[in-house]
């Protein structure tokens, strides 16, 4: 039978449901993955540049000969806002960068999640500018201008000294997470408001917009007079680029008058999940990965003519990269694999080039001269790999999260 002591203990057990509820709150609210970011590497003049989850920007040389040497490492600015508490931190406290650096001349540009844009010199000296809201996209540099959007739906242009160029920022209806693309004086970008915008790069005026059935988080690709973009509605679209006449018309349009709606020319509807990443146009086909784990090769002229050229066991959110010398396309997957695709092969003719045992979420960078792929894999300890594109051998690696 139960003694009084046991009863007392059992009485305390009555609080188990309460503790369970609190545990639910704490476990589900606070132990979800924090904002980690996934910065892809850029490679220039023998140095790989990458943002780290420790909130730093790293310049690393000699990785491909397995003698990684830190040229310099600079800290990003601390958080502007957000609760110091663990739970609030999950949502509002940024830790790193999602953007991939862009190299222009002797400077490297990157934006962090906190909303700063940085301009690094090759020696590591830095200039930065706070833009007002979180940034997920990478900077696009074209025509001596940096184009980028933020999570407040603002899209803006900065000169290379980080001064605003337009009279006013363009305001989309929702977050801008995708990187922009530039062609013939027009900049294209998607937004979570389901729209793809065509903006005059000189003035920031909207030329037209296209409306998808879901948010657009991917980056457009421009080729053959079309803007190619996938959306979070499982569809991939081809939309005609803006013409000079449309650009002139936009310049004449009165303030407040809505821009016209553009229709898609072709729509690909065979994917089983969203499109998150940029496509590659090569050899008459569009090569694009989907979050369903497949890479599709779609005939540019007929979207019903397609083949699945690579099937992986994880989401594909890295854009395919082309190694010109080898004539091969490479893509990374969340399943940790790096796959090589023969563009002239048939259905599902990819090979697993390397297994990094860590999700590949950030764009890969290819050094066309040496045939080395730079891959920032996100295995919790985050490692930057140099992989031989011919053999798949790991030539060198460096733990960017600072843990050996």
């Amino acid at each position, binding site marked *: *039978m*139960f*003694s*009084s*002591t*046991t*009863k*007392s*203990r*059992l*009485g*305390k*057990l*009555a*609080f*188990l*449901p*309460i503790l*369970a*509820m*609190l545990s*639910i*709150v*704490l476990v*589900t*609210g606070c132990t*979800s*993955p924090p*904002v*980690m970011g996934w910065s892809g590497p850029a490679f220039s003049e023998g140095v790989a540049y990458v943002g780290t989850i420790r909130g730093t920007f790293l310049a690393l040389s000699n990785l491909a000969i397995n003698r990684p040497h830190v040229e310099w490492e600079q800290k990003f600015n601390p958080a502007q806002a957000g*609760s110091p*508490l*663990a*739970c*609030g931190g999950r*949502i*509002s406290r940024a830790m790193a960068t*999602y953007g991939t650096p862009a190299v222009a001349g002797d400077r490297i540009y990157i934006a962090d999640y906190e909303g700063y844009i940085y301009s690094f010199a090759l020696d590591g000296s830095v200039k930065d500018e706070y833009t007002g809201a979180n940034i*997920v996209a990478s900077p696009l540099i074209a025509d001596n201008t940096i184009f980028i959007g933020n999570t407040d739906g603002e899209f803006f242009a900065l000169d290379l000294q980080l001064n605003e160029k337009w009279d006013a920022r363009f305001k989309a209806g*929702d*977050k801008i*997470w995708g990187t922009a693309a530039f062609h013939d004086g027009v900049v294209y970008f998607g937004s*979570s408001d389901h729209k793809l915008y065509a903006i005059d790069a000189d003035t920031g005026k909207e030329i037209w917009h296209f409306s998808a*059935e*879901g*948010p657009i*988080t991917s980056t457009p690709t421009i080729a053959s007079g079309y803007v190619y973009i996938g959306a*979070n*509605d*499982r569809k991939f679209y081809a939309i005609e680029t803006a013409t000079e006449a449309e650009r002139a018309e936009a310049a004449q349009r009165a303030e407040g008058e809505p821009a016209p709606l553009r229709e898609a020319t072709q729509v690909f509807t065979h994917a*089983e*999940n*969203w499109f*998150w990443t940029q496509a590659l146009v090569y050899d008459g086909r569009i090569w694009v990965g989907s*979050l369903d784990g497949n890479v599709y090769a779609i005939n540019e002229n007929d979207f019903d003519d397609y083949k699945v050229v690579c099937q992986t066991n994880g*989401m594909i*959110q890295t854009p395919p990269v082309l190694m010109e010398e080898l004539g091969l396309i490479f893509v990374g997957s969340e399943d940790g694999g790096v796959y090589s695709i023969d563009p002239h092969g048939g259905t599902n003719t990819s090979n697993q080039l390397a297994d990094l045992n860590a999700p590949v979420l950030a764009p890969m960078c290819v050094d066309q001269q040496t045939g080395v792929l730079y891959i920032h894999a996100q295995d919790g300890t985050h490692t930057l790999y140099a992989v031989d594109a011919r053999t798949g051998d790991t030539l060198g690696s460096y733990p960017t999260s600072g843990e050996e």
Partner: protein
Amino acid sequence: MEIWDLIVHRPILNFLLLLSNVLFDNFGLAIIVLTLTVRGALAPLTLKQLQASKKMQDATASLQPKLQQLRKKYARNPQKLREEQMKLYKEAGISPLGCLSSPMLVSLIIQIPIFIALYRSIIQALAVTPQDLLGLSQSIYSWPIVTEALPVSGHFLWIDLAKPDPYFILPLLVMGTMWISQRMTARSTSADPQQQSMQNMMQVMMPLMFGFITMTLPGGIGLYFVVVTALGIVIQSFVYGWRNPFVRPGGQKGAPRLPNLSDLKRALSPFDQPSNPQEGASHGSSGSKRKDSGRSNSTSSGATGTQQRRGGSRGPQER
């Protein structure tokens, strides 16, 4: 985990997004309607749980005079006292497991996973960071009506559903509703000062803790807490009736007594320390400790002492 996702989590998440689309892209309304729907569907179970709880509380209260008699009768024989107490409980159909007894346990086991799914769905659907949205891509159905709901609108009334409430209105509402809910089910049934102290502590600590947690979580979760608790109060009223939360369980008006340091000490005292002072007599050296505990009881102000006397409880007066 996949079965959990397939049967519970994904349907709730997709229904939430569907509701958001149907309810004019208003995610705040979707949270309210879904919470009401789920809580309403579980209402029979909740009612059963509350009825069982009330029955147990009432039965415990009705036994107090007999328990007091037993204590007097077997003051020098704690072993026999325990046996007789358990016999009495058994005859009255009271489980010593308290609220962990069936059907309350069954009811909780069914409800908790559903609330976890609902809670997780709200966090996931808000998709504040790219990771969140990527995770969402693996959980939502391919129905256009669901896809079109994305991204969910982050604003509802003054609340940014994706960020903590900067005005602290939601945390205050959570604390207020939770405190009222606690007060409605409070009963002075226990003669055990330790359990009384624990009850007092929890009536204040629980709302405070949830209020604090709400301050750090997205407004959408705070809204969910408020709706869940408010509806809980309505459901409780069917079993316990409406009760002025400012009236003490014994019937006295006035602000309820706040827990003091003695309550905290008693509530957090180690499991091994018997709560019944009379047990101390049979435990040799630990008796002196219990004596201190008894003094502490007698000096503690307010409701606890009053309830003990009214309930005819054992305690310092009997020592």
